[in-house]
């Protein structure tokens, strides 16, 4: 089928995007709209003594001012636990927490109105060290306490030890999604007392549920339509400005445009949680992994967001894709007065992959083994039991990935005369004699879809009819949020393949159709792709049955029409029945429509020992990084990246390539440049001037090999592909830097000061304490 699955079909929204005509959420405007803005607390923790909005309300041009007192429904919201206030009321718990919002005739008036709101804060001692907030004498930062979740996985003999041991403590900084289009929405109050939101989000129906609850409205009166989304990467899974905009629209009874600038975007959505992680790996002298112990502290910040699920991912993946008989993997996600943290591409797995891969390199070093060889010897195979007790099913070609990536050609060595390609580029003019080359590897795996017993589903509606010219046309309606990943392309490919009709139209994603679930967890091609496929099959069945009935075919054909009739290239053909009818003729009797809800296989929750069958499936990846490091300046250039990835069946090779290249670049950013830095709870670098992102000068061409073993229980055998390479790119680059400079690196992102003689120990502070942690004194030298 032309433009069906397996082909590099182009994006249907592409032409509008290259012409500047595509409408993103921030581009939406209607006559008479007002401008919404948010007032945020400057304090990491403060009691709110008084809020006086009278002066702001009196300003000419101000149409609405709302605070916690104006929330008619539930006062709080959240993806998992509704503990985040729409506006801080008695206490503000992070610097940047919303306190009030205003709507005014223009943005400048709205800014003046914010300045006119008087808030008396009484600053309180803030808990900003995630390793201290569970201390017995630490103050409770919220009535529900400071622990979001604790997971303790016990597998095999938890005190078992091999003769060769390595242990250390690692830290990973706070990474922002930094999607390019800041948050924006257009919110319109409706005559029926409801509200219509056009918003850039990852999950329309979750937004609707939370907005409706806080507005005190039935869900059917809250209608959302997806506005153009300029990237997401997890950062649009939580509510940001949706409820504020809806409150302002209902208060002012006027359309509200509410949009963040970059600074507010950095403060407004939950980034990837920073982590502190202690690991102890032991092995036999022959290089067989005996035990893995880990203690993880994830800083969830001031409110829950998705911390419990992020932590489950982190702890269950902490040993990596390796066979290990004995494991004790313990983790906590804690509340602090740092910014709330949540979902970002990889969802807890990038942090632990950085840890376990650093450990595997050090174990290889201690054993005198090649790092790739050690990984090959210990890589999991289908049928192995993971530390949760889950039996690894389905394809997971970890060893094959390692062999493939190690066999890729290496780049030429650094050379004099090509200063532009040395670390720092021009005009630093690195001295090639002081540049060291390093090569590093990382293997990792990541769960696909939602875990821990959640009966997650996605719905789609498909209609097959004739267009104005009498040609067959498929109309696909799904609430799946297109955030750039290309679901709109793949949905069309699936519909063409299943129904043999080239013309596919996608209806706007909105809440008038059932939930598609979240665009996250590498789930939409599998889940919503499965829903579109299921709906197409149901449409075909109905049409074929109608044709069979009209042709007077026997009842068994009418009941199971697929066994006798097929849709081929615009025709319905039944060889046995001697039937051949044009699709357009068949549809002249009326359109056919069907809905389908796709469910993945059931998983189970973790029990008290961290045992269960928590994950639907996994995908693996192996990266090799080559770096040059300037020993004098501590500058790093990533020279080349190679990736072998477990991709399942490939539906669109071009889109796959885009996902793995983009995922690799975000991992590169975390390795050497990206970190939201906090000082006493305040983010000190919330701008693109200070938060550095990889550019075209930083990201080398990716040498990519796909392994395409089909996933048996997924539609067409697909696997999600976007997250796994983000998990492995960072540790591969860090390993390469470690190899180049010959020192242990424990902190990510790696900074120049870690590479030149400014902080020779590279220590990252004490290890997370606990029953099986190090006795005292932090990292134990081996």
């Amino acid at each position, binding site marked *: 089928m032309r433009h069906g699955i397996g082909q590099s079909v182009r994006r249907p929204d592409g032409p509008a*995007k290259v012409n*500047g005509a595509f409408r993103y959420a921030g581009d939406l405007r209607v006559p008479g709209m007002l401008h919404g803005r948010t007032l945020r607390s400057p304090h990491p923790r403060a009691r709110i003594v008084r809020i006086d909005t009278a002066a702001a309300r009196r300003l000419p041009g101000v149409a609405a001012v709302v605070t916690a007192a104006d929330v008619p429904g539930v006062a709080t919201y959240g993806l998992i636990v509704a503990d985040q206030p729409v506006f801080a009321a008695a206490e503000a718990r992070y610097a940047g927490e919303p306190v009030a919002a205003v709507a005014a005739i223009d943005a400048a008036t709205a800014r003046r109105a914010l300045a006119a709101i008087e808030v008396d804060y009484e600053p309180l001692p803030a808990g900003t060290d995630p390793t201290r907030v569970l201390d017995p004498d630490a103050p409770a930062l919220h009535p529900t306490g400071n622990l979001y979740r604790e997971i303790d996985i016990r597998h095999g003999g938890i005190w078992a030890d091999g003769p060769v041991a390595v242990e250390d403590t690692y830290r990973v900084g706070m990474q922002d999604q930094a999607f*390019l289009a800041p948050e924006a929405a257009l919110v319109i109050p409706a005559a029926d007392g409801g509200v219509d939101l056009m918003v850039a989000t990852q999950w329309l129906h979750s937004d609707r549920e939370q907005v409706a609850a806080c507005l005190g409205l039935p869900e059917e009166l809250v209608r959302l339509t997806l506005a153009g989304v300029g990237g997401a990467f997890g950062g649009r899974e939580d509510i940001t400005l949706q409820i504020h905009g809806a409150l302002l629209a209902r208060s002012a009874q006027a359309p509200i445009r509410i949009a963040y600038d970059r600074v507010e975007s950095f403060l407004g959505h939950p980034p990837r949680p920073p982590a502190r992680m202690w690991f102890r790996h032991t092995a036999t002298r022959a290089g067989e992994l005996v035990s893995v112990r880990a203690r993880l502290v994830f800083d969830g910040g001031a409110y829950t967001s998705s911390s419990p699920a992020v932590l489950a991912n982190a702890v269950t993946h902490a040993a990596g894709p390796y066979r290990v008989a004995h494991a004790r993997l313990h983790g906590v996600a804690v509340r602090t007065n740092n910014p709330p943290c949540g979902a970002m591409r990889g969802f807890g797995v990038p942090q632990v992959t950085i840890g376990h891969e650093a450990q595997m390199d050090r174990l290889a070093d201690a054993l005198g083994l090649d790092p790739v060889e050690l990984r090959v010897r210990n890589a999991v195979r289908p049928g192995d039991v993971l530390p949760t007790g889950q039996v690894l099913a389905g394809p997971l070609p970890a060893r094959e990935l390692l062999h493939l990536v190690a066999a890729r050609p290496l780049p030429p060595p650094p050379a004099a005369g090509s200063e532009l390609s040395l670390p720092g580029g021009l005009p630093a003019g690195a001295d090639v004699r002081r540049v060291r080359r390093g090569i590093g590897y990382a293997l990792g795996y990541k769960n696909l879809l939602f875990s821990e017993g959640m009966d997650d589903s996605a719905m789609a509606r498909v209609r097959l009819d004739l267009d104005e010219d009498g040609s067959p046309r498929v109309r696909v309606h799904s609430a799946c949020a297109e955030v750039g990943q290309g679901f709109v392309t793949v949905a069309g490919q699936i519909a063409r393949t299943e129904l043999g009709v080239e013309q596919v139209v996608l209806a706007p994603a909105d809440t008038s159709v059932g939930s598609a679930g979240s665009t996250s967890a590498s789930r939409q091609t599998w889940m919503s792709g499965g829903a579109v496929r299921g709906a197409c099959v149901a449409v075909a069945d109905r049409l074929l049955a109608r044709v069979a009935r009209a042709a007077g075919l026997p009842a068994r054909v009418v009941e199971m029409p697929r066994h006798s009739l097929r849709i081929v290239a615009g025709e319905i053909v039944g060889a046995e029945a001697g039937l051949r009818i044009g699709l357009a003729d068949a549809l002249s009797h009326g359109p056919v429509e069907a809905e389908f809800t796709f469910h993945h296989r059931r998983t189970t929750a973790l029990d008290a020992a961290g045992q269960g069958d928590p994950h639907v499936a996994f995908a693996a990846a192996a990266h090799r990084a080559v770096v040059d490091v300037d020993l004098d300046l501590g500058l790093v250039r990533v020279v080349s990246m190679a990736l072998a990835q477990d991709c399942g069946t490939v539906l669109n090779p071009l889109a796959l390539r885009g996902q793995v290249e983009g995922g690799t670049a975000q991992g590169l950013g975390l390795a050497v440049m990206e970190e939201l830095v906090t000082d006493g709870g305040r983010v000190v670098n919330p701008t693109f001037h200070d938060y550095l*992102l990889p550019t075209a000068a*930083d990201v080398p061409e990716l040498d990519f090999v796909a392994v395409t073993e089909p996933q048996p229980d997924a539609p067409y055998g697909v696997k999600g592909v976007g997250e796994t390479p983000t998990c492995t790119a960072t540790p591969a680059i860090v390993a390469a830097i470690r190899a180049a400079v010959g020192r242990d690196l424990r902190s990510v992102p790696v900074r120049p000061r870690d590479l030149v003689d400014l902080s020779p120990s590279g220590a990252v502070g004490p290890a997370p304490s606990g029953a099986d942690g190090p006795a005292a004194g932090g990292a134990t030298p081996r």
Partner: protein
Amino acid sequence: MTAAGESYQLYVDGFPRAVVGAELGDSLLSVLRDTLGVTSVKDACEQGRCGACSVLLDGRLAASCTVLAADADGARVVTVAGLGAVGLARAVRAMFLAEGAVQCGFCTPGFVVAVTDLLTRRPDADDEEIREALAGNICRCTGYGRILAAIRAVQRERGILPSLEESRARPDGG
């Protein structure tokens, strides 16, 4: 605060546009988007760091967020929408689509302007020069691989790089 009585003119994508009601301190980006409603130019950082707001200002590439609109009085401003549907700009757009250089697309208007400008000035720019020249445009989705592939495809189409068939035919592969 509106600067009463102040007005000036910009030529945006070929059309004269009177700017009335803008503040004197407004950036060109904000005047384009908020005063004139020209949304083909994107706002992502407002610090001149990401290139999403790239335009041609009297023929020179500029980050419109770093230009005072009032300083641009009388200037010709070209956004991606005004680059035209023929020639180099058409080729750049076509190859961005064919090579998968567009995902969320928010950086794309700025990239298309910047790439068109680069290949106008330096049609035979090599890989290093292209990467340095585009280091002011941030893309968070693609990791740049398909954007660079699109640029090479434009250069091939215009005979600056050998076509894929030609490079395969050569024994040294390139």
